[in-house]
C-alpha cells in the first residue's frame, strides 16, 4: 500500500501528539518528578528507564483505560516495556 506524503505527515503528527499526551498522563498519574518532554519515545518504563514498579503498571493500565479508552490485559503486558510500545498498543486498539 502506498501513502501520499500528506498522509504520512498527518500520521506522524497524530503519533507525536499521542506520545505527548501519554507522557503527560504518565507524569501526572504516577506523580513522577520529571518534565514530560524529557521522556524519550524509546525510553524503557521499568529498570533504568523511568524506574516504574509493578504497582505503577496497574495504575498506568487504569489511566490508559480511563483517559484513552484502551484496555491493557495480561496478554498485552509487553506493551508496558517502553513508551513506543505503549503508544503502538493504544494506536492499534482505540
Amino acid at each position: 500500500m502506498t501513502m501520499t506524503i500528506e498522509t504520512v505527515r498527518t500520521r506522524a503528527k497524530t503519533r507525536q501528539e499521542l506520545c505527548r499526551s501519554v507522557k503527560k498522563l504518565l507524569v501526572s498519574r504516577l506523580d513522577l518528578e520529571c518534565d514530560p518532554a524529557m521522556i524519550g519515545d524509546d525510553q524503557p518504563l521499568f529498570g533504568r528507564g523511568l524506574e516504574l514498579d509493578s504497582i505503577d503498571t496497574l495504575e498506568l493500565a487504569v489511566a490508559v483505560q480511563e483517559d484513552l479508552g484502551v484496555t491493557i490485559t495480561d496478554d498485552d503486558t509487553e506493551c508496558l516495556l517502553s513508551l513506543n510500545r505503549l503508544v503502538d498498543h493504544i494506536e492499534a486498539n482505540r
Partner: protein
Amino acid sequence: MTTTLPATEQPAGSTEAWRAKDAVRTADEIARMLPHRYPFFLLDRITALEPGVSATAIKNISASDGILAGHFPGRMLYPGVLLIECIAQLAAVIYGAEGELAGGADGQVADRVGYLAEIRHAKFLRPAFPGDQLVVQAHSGARVGNLISVTGQISIDREPAVQARLAVTQRPDPTA
C-alpha cells in the same frame, strides 16, 4: 443465589427463617470466604454481590469494639485505616465469589486472598462513630498480573464518608 424457605418449612432449630432478606452473604458465610478472623474480621453482611465485579456490604460500628477503647479514650472514633481495610476485605469477597464460581472450595478461596498493595487517593469525608451503620461498596477495575485495581466508597446515612482507590493482590492458585 441463596433462597430462603418460608418459616413453616424450616427444620427445627434452623436460623434460616430469620435470615435477613438483604443478606446475600451472612457473616458466617463471609468468614468461609476470607482468612481474616477476630479482631480483624470486619464485615457484618454482604447485601449485593456480582462475583469478580462489585459488591456492597454493611458494617456496624459498636461501642463494644475493643479498638475503640484506645481510639480514643473518651472520644470513640472508628480508625480510618480500618475503614480502608473494610473496602479491602470487600474486594477479597468479590474475588472470592469469583473463585467459588470457578469451583474453588471455601478453604481454597480463602487461601487465595492476597495483600493490600497500594492505597491511592483516599479521602475521609466524615468520621464514623459508635452506632453508625456503614454501607461499604467496592468495584473492581483493571487487572495486570496478580494486581487488581479496586475503587471503594463508604457512606453513613447516605452521606459519603470515605472514597479510596486500592490495589490488591491475589495469591496464585496452588492447584493451577
